[in-house]
């Protein structure tokens, strides 16, 4: 449960995607610890306006976030944070993207349009990313080129197939992202 006392550096990568795309499953297949859950506070505008000042109501709510851990050496630990992709979670993104190495964006080829808000967030926070096309049973096999085109991705953004239930498949997707991060650093 505890970290090696020599661990001196921690890094983080975000596992992002729309509702139900497989973020938690992906973290579960990669993490060395049973994935944990935190409660993050966000403020959102709620229905209606304040009667006196006419400003929109704001309220604080909490959002659950899953994460996992990977010890990579005596001194280095990687955390994976499953970050929900809805626009209203922007506040959470602001904090989580700070210092993050990059993001693995999970997409479902049958619901590609749901990934646009996620890609908007990833890009607005300047995160380098790779796309993991999650395989769901019964889905037709979509050519990766079609996914790339439909999502309007730049030519150098890696797009890989994965089945996030399987470590042997999630791990290469994560490694693809980190290789991409290396090339971006020149």
């Amino acid at each position, binding site marked *: 449960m505890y970290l090696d006392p020599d661990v001196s550096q921690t890094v983080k990568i975000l596992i992002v995607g729309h509702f139900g795309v497989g973020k938690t499953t992906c973290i579960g297949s990669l993490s060395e610890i049973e994935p944990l859950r935190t409660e993050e506070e966000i403020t959102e505008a709620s229905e209606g306006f304040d009667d006196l000042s006419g400003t929109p109501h704001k*309220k604080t709510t*909490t959002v659950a976030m899953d994460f996992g851990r990977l010890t990579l050496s005596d001194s280095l630990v990687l*955390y994976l944070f499953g970050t929900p992709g809805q626009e209203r979670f922007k506040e959470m993104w602001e*904090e989580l993207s700070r210092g993050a190495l990059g993001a693995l964006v999970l997409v479902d080829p049958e619901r590609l349009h749901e990934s646009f808000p996620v890609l908007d967030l990833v890009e607005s926070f300047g995160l380098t990313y790779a796309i993991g096309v999650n395989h769901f049973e019964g889905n037709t096999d979509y050519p990766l080129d079609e996914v790339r085109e439909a999502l309007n991705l730049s030519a150098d953004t890696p797009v890989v197939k994965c089945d996030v239930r399987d470590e042997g498949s999630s791990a290469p997707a*994560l490694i693809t992202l980190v290789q991409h991060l290396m090339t971006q650093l020149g």
Partner: protein
Amino acid sequence: MPDEHEPEQELELTSPLVPLFVITNGRALPPDHQYEHTALVMAAEGASAMAGALSPEARQVLDLITEGFLSVAEVAGHTHLPVGIVRILLAQLEEDSLILVRRPVPRAERVDRELVSAVLEGLKNRFGA
């Protein structure tokens, strides 16, 4: 302090499990960056005995990290306390010199290359790729 926690209907939203005001004595939130999710914390040697009157939640946090380092996120995960509360408790504990904190090195282009390369190597070793 937020005092308008109405029950939330939406699936991914849960209402706080604890009366925030009581645990934190109305303290202001420390800035996020002070205790990032990936900052590591551990109880100082002898902290448990040294600690004076602590709230049950501060005690819970201190006990959890007596045996070794955990990230702020893990402290929140294990204690089921919201991250915002964990941060306030850690700020109190650090002020009283009851914990050690290792903060992640801020990103800079030069360290990044080395770091990302170490991450890549670590992942390859771990997953035999």
